[in-house]
């Protein structure tokens, strides 16, 4: 046995060790900055074509290869002119707010030398609008090319010259500005030669490797299920140092974030988005302290959606004639007092400290601390006494003077307005989280315990995402389900995608809590048509929007995660921002990774 162990060790050290631990010569110059290796759990990209792509894995690749029409600042999360990798040098609206003129930079070219012009954007627009391709973004247009209604706000996009694009909207709408960016410009001279007017041909070869691009990296090499590699493109003009420092950028597939973390610690990756469960280790473990890290407030929030409508009878927000359809209230959560009682019953600070190792910032509305409309004064007050008071006020009473048993309905809202026989029913709720996240399950259990302390009979369960959680969420047959929203860019507090009756559609709509407040919708509508999209005026309106959301509680807004990114010790020129952990990648000097 000793011989066997010795042989195994010798084998490992002789066969494997020579292949590992290659330290890089650190140097500054074009392509001398080493290979950057990142990990991805998003799976294979569906396509490298931005006109038919929509998944995270695909956009992670083609965002390196194509410009955006309007740049979003990695520092503010807002659109700004003259940003690296973007075409717009400026823009203005006409007096009606329905015509947007975008001026384009004249100093950028594709890497084959062809200038990037409005024709590139227009080709992409026509392809998207043709209806011939499977584009997830065709809905930004009012109609498709054949006149079929598409539901969007963009009436037309024209190019009076090579460096001007004019977008006409059906109505003035501040959030439609970002729709312009939903279409990614592509090299028209290449695409028209490949596909002509037969846009559908793009669907035949979704993983066609782009031959002409614009970005810090080019030349995709793809190994299914394994790796995507891009080479530095020294012709890219928007670099920080005047050249692209890394020679290559590689993304490797990994099974999950724990495996990715172990492999990063083992030196196999250059950069890691540290999972919440491992962040404390990176702050305290002596060995892990060597890894430079960047901590920032994430661009998203976690919440418990609280179904306002009866889950036994889900109804859409509008009837077939477009009239508002009154919703039968949820037997428990239909009463705002009960929802507010829950907000007082759960100690979010204890949850963040105890379960998330302090990783998180409490929120109480849909805006996050980095948002330009964030109001820090709106916070749920933890007070079990107040929770008990509100429950009693709502008609949920402690019938047996035993705080350990569930309260019962005694003239609660549902008994008053829907069914008098409901009197005597228990204050019971199902709490569901998607299975597979240890932290998520702990938080679900915490909510269950906290709510049961004030007289609920809350029953927690972690259920499968695809087969159980999502169907009941979109089907609106749940009580309280925990979920997180990533807010995307640009940062905007618009709430139309979540709380309008138009998107209260059982089976697919995102107002799955069936929330409706006429004042809220009015305010949001006003905020969307503020002349010039003036930030100050919009902030005032959204201030009131937040107060309404805080009071009505369509969600129990929980927290914003504190995100952490770490890189290998010795990485140079790493300058992450809250909205881009790889900002400045073209300047990085990255130490060599372990290549077993």
């Amino acid at each position: 046995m000793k011989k066997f162990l010795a042989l195994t060790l010798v084998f490992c050290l002789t066969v494997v060790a020579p292949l590992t631990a290659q330290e890089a010569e650190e140097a500054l110059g074009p392509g001398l900055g080493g290979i950057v290796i990142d990990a991805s759990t998003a799976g294979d990209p569906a396509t490298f074509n931005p006109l038919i792509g929509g998944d995270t894995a695909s956009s992670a690749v083609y965002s390196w290869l194509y410009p955006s029409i309007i740049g979003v600042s990695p520092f503010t999360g807002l659109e700004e002119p003259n940003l690296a990798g973007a075409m717009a040098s400026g823009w203005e609206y006409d007096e009606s707010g329905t015509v947007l003129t975008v001026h384009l930079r004249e100093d950028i070219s594709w890497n084959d030398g062809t200038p990037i012009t409005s024709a590139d954007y227009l080709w992409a627009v026509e392809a998207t609008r043709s209806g011939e391709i499977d584009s997830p973004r065709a809905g930004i247009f009012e109609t498709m090319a054949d006149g079929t209604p598409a539901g969007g706000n963009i009436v037309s996009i024209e190019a009076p010259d090579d460096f001007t694009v004019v977008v006409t909207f059906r109505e003035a709408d501040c959030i439609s500005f970002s729709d312009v960016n939903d279409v990614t410009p592509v090299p028209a001279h290449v695409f028209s030669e490949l596909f002509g007017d037969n846009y559908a041909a793009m669907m035949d070869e979704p993983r066609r490797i782009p031959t002409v691009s614009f970005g810090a990296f080019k030349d995709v090499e793809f190994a299914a299920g394994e790796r995507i590699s891009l080479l530095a493109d020294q012709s890219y003009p928007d670099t920080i140092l005047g050249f692209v420092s890394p020679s290559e950028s590689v993304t490797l597939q990994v099974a999950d974030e724990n495996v990715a973390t172990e492999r990063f610690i083992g030196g196999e990756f250059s950069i890691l988005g540290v999972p919440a469960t491992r962040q404390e280790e990176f702050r305290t473990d002596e060995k892990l302290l060597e890894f430079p890290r960047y901590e920032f407030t994430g661009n998203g929030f976690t919440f418990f959606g609280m179904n306002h409508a009866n889950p036994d009878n889900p109804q859409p927000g509008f009837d077939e004639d477009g009239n508002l359809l009154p919703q039968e209230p949820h037997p428990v959560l239909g009463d705002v007092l009960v929802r507010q009682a829950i907000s007082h019953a759960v100690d979010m600070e204890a949850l963040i400290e105890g379960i998330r190792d302090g990783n998180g910032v409490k929120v109480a509305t849909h805006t996050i601390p980095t948002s330009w409309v964030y109001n820090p004064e709106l916070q749920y007050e933890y007070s079990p006494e107040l929770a008990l008071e509100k429950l009693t006020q709502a008609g949920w009473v402690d019938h047996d003077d035993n705080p350990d048993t569930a309260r019962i309905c005694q003239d609660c809202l549902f008994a008053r307005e829907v069914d008098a026989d409901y009197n005597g029913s228990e204050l019971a709720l199902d709490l569901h989280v998607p299975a597979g996240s240890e932290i998520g399950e702990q938080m679900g259990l915490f909510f269950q315990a906290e709510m049961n302390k004030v007289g609920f009979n809350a029953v927690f369960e972690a259920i499968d995402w695809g087969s159980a959680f999502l169907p009941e969420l979109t089907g609106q047959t749940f009580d309280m389900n925990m979920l997180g929203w990533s807010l995307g860019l640009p940062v905007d507090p618009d709430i139309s995608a979540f709380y309008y009756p138009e998107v209260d559609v059982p089976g697919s709509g995102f107002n799955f809590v069936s929330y409706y407040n006429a004042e809220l919708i009015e305010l949001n509508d006003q905020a969307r048509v503020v002349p010039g999209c003036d930030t100050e005026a919009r902030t005032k309106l959204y201030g009131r929007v937040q107060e309404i959301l805080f009071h009505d509680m369509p969600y129990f807004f929980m927290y914003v995660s504190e995100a952490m990114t770490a890189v290998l010790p010795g990485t140079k020129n790493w300058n992450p921002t809250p909205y881009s952990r790889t900002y400045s990648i073209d300047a990085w000097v990255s130490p060599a990774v372990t290549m077993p």
Partner: protein
Amino acid sequence: MQQYIVRRILQSIPTLLGITLIVYFIMLLAPGDPVSLLAFDPTIRQDERERLAMQLGVNDPFFVQYLRWLIGDDWMMVDSNFDGELDAWGDNYGILRGDFGRSFKFRGSNPLTLISERLGATIELNIAVLLVGLTSGIVIGVLAAVMRGKAFDRFTRIFAVIGDSVPSFWLGLMAIVFFGLMLPRVLEGYAIGDGRPLLPMGGRCPPVRGGCPPVYMRLQYLILPTLVSAFGVVAVWSRFMRASMLETINSDYIRTARAKGLAKRDIWFRHGLRNAILPFTVFLGPTFLGLIGGSVIIERIFTWPGVGLLLFDALLSRDHPVIMASVVIGSVLTVVGYLVSDILYAIFDPRVRF
């Protein structure tokens, strides 16, 4: 023999059709729909989601969906621009004419292409597992039989129980932690190595451009997934081999060989082993197929870019065309695997005739 093969092939046709019908039915019966999973994004408008559902054809009744998948829709009018009017002939030919449809998740890619670009990795891993599993299993089984009742035999019995019981996902994670992190750190404490992983913790090829090098240049990537996957194979096969060996060794012709005074080594290995190994030809096909099924877990843990990982993702995203393509290929391989096993048995054992 030829008649037998033809008969078996003909019998397999209704079997395959039955499998596809049942699997398609179960797949559609499962909760969760592809559109919700593909378009769970509030920025995608409601009408876009409806359009996507029509494009994918997932709102059609079960039999329409199944028939379209089986025989195509070029014989029927479809709504090509999704305006509610039937305005053009369909353009799907159906699987019976070699059209596997288009992947939902991978934006129209041919499922056969997706599978074929990963099949090599799965076959490579499973051949390695079979080689390691069979050779080790046979050697351990024979030695256990030779040393019947002794410490080694008892040890292998315990090993077999453990090997057959330990879930591969747990063993895989333990292997990653041990070889990737714990052992290197322990060795570093003794000034051996620099604390970096001794073996790759995932992947199939070094992350360098120019394609995957030949397998002999990247054996280190095969070690962990092969050992973990082979663990159960060794356990089961060693017990089979032991039992078969003991049965053979108690047969009359072995007794005769002993009476003739043949050397023990000749009796065990020349006469005993060659006959004892015969029944294994029957297990070969099913074992290989079982490994392909088991690849789903191993490939997931070690990020081995094989068909298993593709199937896992397809199941999570309800990518019906990819799931069905995998099922069809798996079913055909199963039928062929059993057929080959039976034929091999007839070739190796002259007593068997069909």
